[in-house]
């Protein structure tokens, strides 16, 4: 113990950015370093459990106790609460402190804050789940491709042009689905600067309308376009807007397909003028709507309510693009009645080219 009274060693221990305590056989804290006192206060006289206010079930496996028993180093992950009430994840190592005869007279407990690592771990778990989800979506698409190819081959054998065309359409449809997933992944995976340009919002919305018209018709969904003709131009990234709208429209279509209560389904695609020169895009459907419990999760990363048909990437991409534009996306929904998504792009001047 004499070493600890040495001022140099004390300063050394105080400046180590880990929570270090010395404990006796009864787990009473005899000493703590500066870093520990700063975040947890004065521990002298308390036992470890009382000081951290840990319920006894979590202390069943106590590394300090085990070190006293066998003299080896033990470790354990725990959640501790600082004196300011902040929860931190730590990994605890206990190591024996022996006297000159080799008798263990105390155990040094060193706790390292691993909260940032835990955060990354959480994100990796979510990433893993997304990749698994994506694999399932792709499996479905492969089945669709298999089907299209089968029908095309059958049409070729029977010399039936109509069937070849029908099969080919299935192939194209599923090919389009894969392209969308790939686009979404790319959008999510990198930071990109929007390519701002002066565009006609109504023109882009009309293009989207024509792109989805046939698909909507195939599912017997009425698809309407309502343009505010007074909107002339806006400064935004045309690819970004196209991606936002196609994600919202395909979601609206899924919402209609999932709804088995109504006979007639309708999707409306609108442009509007917002406040302060903003441009507003609305995608409204009368599909299943979003349940109260799910409303908070809608924009959460990797969240999907579509079983293995959704990747959870779509709205994440939408939100990312809107953020890049300094805009926002909101929605209003009533369960079983329908949902309206509103994307607002703020007014923006074309950046001046550098002289």
């Amino acid at each position, binding site marked *: 113990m004499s070493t600890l009274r040495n001022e140099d060693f004390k300063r050394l221990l105080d400046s180590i950015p880990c929570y270090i305590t010395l404990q006796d056989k009864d787990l009473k804290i005899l000493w703590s370093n500066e870093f520990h006192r700063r975040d947890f206060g004065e521990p002298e006289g308390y036992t470890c459990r009382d000081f951290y206010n840990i319920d006894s079930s979590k202390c069943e496996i106590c590394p300090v106790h085990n070190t006293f028993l066998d003299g080896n180093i033990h470790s354990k992950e725990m959640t501790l609460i600082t004196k300011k009430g902040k929860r931190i994840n730590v990994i605890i190592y206990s190591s024996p402190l022996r006297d000159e005869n080799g008798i263990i007279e105390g155990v040094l407990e060193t706790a390292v804050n691993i909260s940032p690592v835990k955060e990354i771990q959480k994100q990796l778990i979510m990433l893993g789940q997304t990749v698994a989800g994506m694999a399932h*979506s792709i499996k479905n698409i492969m*089945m669709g491709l298999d089907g299209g190819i089968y029908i095309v081959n059958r049409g070729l054998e029977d010399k039936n042009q109509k069937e070849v065309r029908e099969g080919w359409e*299935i192939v194209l449809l599923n090919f389009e689905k894969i392209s969308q997933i790939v686009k979404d992944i790319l959008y999510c995976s990198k930071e990109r600067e929007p390519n701002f340009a002066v565009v006609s919002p109504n023109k882009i919305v009309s293009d989207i309308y024509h792109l989805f018209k046939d698909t909507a018709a195939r599912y017997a969904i009425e698809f309407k376009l309502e343009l505010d003709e007074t909107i002339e131009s806006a400064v935004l990234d045309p690819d970004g807007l196209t991606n936002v709208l196609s994600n919202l429209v395909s979601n609206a279509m899924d919402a209609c397909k999932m709804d088995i209560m109504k006979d007639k389904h309708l999707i409306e695609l609108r442009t509007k003028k917002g406040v302060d020169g903003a441009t507003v895009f609305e995608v409204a459907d009368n599909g299943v709507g979003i349940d109260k419990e799910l409303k908070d999760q809608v924009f959460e990363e990797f969240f999907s309510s579509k079983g*293995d048909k959704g990747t959870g990437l779509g709205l994440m991409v939408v939100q990312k693009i809107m953020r890049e534009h300094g805009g926002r996306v909101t929605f209003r929904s009533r369960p079983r009645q329908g949902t309206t998504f509103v994307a607002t792009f703020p007014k923006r001047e074309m950046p001046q080219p550098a002289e």
Partner: protein
Amino acid sequence: MPKKILVVDDDPSVVKYLTAFLEDSGYETITASNGEEAFEILKSERADLVTLDLQMPNETGTRFYRNVTKDKNLKDIPIIVISGLAGRHLAVTKPVAVFDKPVDRNALLKVVRETIG
């Protein structure tokens, strides 16, 4: 008289594929795009076998499975599960077979032939 198979899947490509393939193999087919619709059809029309996608939105596939296996008139209809998420179908009784998407159609046909001839 050909045996009749009810194909249940919300993806029209898959429905088209399975009906074309099963018809080519000599079966008659009827289709439904969700579990509710499928259950309604079974009340009025006899099917000798059902192929079911369990992962349809709103869990209508799972509900359909439960409804059919509980209904004394329908519980003996063999069900083949074809799903992107194989192995996640712990319902009341066991399906005849479970296929992962994309399905191996020859293996599927083998099971169909063994089950209903």
